[in-house]
């Protein structure tokens, strides 16, 4: 704790300090959870950000007042990897199971035509529907349950400062490295399909997607933090 300087005269004070800290953390988390739920929907993210930032501010204020709070960087990583996974899940779940909705056929097509024609070229032609670019469907089927769902579960454990949360966040963030490397290699091999007739090809895709590197930013922290702070 950066400012854990309360004068603790006895176990009663310690218990009270612990109770107040838990209460303050829960209060902050309620704001941040509400914000993160909205952030994960993409379209309502703009309404979620103020809620999230208020929760973050409450946490920092409580820490400055001397309460024992979760480190800010743990909070940021936990919520952000969950939001990152949720955003990926929305787009891919839409493509996997809701490819014939008007929403998918307008906005996935539009996104595809603008940045990545994997979501435009021969769309809804496979019997399974949705994206037809070579390999794309396989990534969706593999990564939705194995990476993104597990990463959200790991992030929840991580925010609870559980050791399994820390361990599984490392595992799922490294999954993310594999996913990015494989996905980009696949896109490059089939670049004609993905980028021909696209409004903002390649550089546009990178500018749009680079902010999904959150799990990579998490990894150096996860490997360098003193893991004794995470409990069984």
């Amino acid at each position: 704790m950066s400012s854990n300087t309360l004068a603790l005269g006895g176990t009663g004070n310690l218990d009270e300090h612990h109770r107040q800290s838990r209460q303050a953390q829960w209060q902050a988390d309620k704001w941040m959870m509400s914000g993160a739920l909205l952030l994960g929907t993409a379209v309502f993210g703009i309404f979620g950000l103020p809620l999230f930032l208020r929760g973050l501010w409450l946490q920092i204020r409580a820490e400055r007042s001397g309460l024992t709070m979760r480190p800010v960087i743990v909070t940021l990583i936990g919520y952000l990897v969950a939001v990152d996974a949720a955003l990926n899940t929305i787009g891919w779940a839409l493509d996997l199971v809701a490819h014939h909705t008007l929403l998918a056929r307008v906005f996935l097509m539009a996104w595809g035509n603008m940045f990545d024609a994997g979501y435009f070229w021969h769309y809804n032609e496979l019997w399974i529907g949705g994206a037809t670019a070579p390999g794309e469907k396989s990534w969706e089927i593999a990564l939705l349950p194995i990476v993104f769902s597990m990463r959200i579960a790991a992030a929840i454990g991580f925010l609870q400062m559980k050791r399994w949360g820390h361990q599984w966040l490392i595992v799922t963030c490294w999954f993310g490295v594999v996913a990015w490397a494989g996905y980009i290699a696949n896109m490059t091999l089939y670049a004609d399909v993905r980028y021909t007739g696209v409004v903002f090809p390649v550089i546009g895709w990178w500018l749009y997607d680079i902010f999904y590197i959150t799990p990579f930013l998490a990894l150096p922290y996860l490997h360098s933090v003193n893991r004794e702070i995470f409990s069984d």
Partner: protein
Amino acid sequence: MNESQSDELPLGTTPAFANMHKWLRRGLIVCLCALVLEGAFTFPLLAVWYGWPTLSLQEICTEFERIRFSDESRECIYPYPLFGPAEGAGQTTARDEWGVQPRPQYQAIEYRELVRRVEARRARENQ
């Protein structure tokens, strides 16, 4: 790093990694804000680029389908039958240079181009 500085480090951060953790925190905040802005503005900006509100979403869907499959007779069926075949299954009109690396032959859609396509078609039909 002296003891007082060490005391001010966040829980779990050792002096050796304090600087790295500080920069990671900044990077995380940048990613958070960028993801929020992208999430919030992508849908409306895409909608405007491709012709909304002049065109309805279903009209945009129809134009996409016509360009994708190079077939001006196609219509975007909505709502689509729940257990129907994929809308493009068996189509034979889409144009590509086929080979081990297929290359589509449609062109990128410019800003509000779908509106101009629809208006030009209506003008032809009214002549």
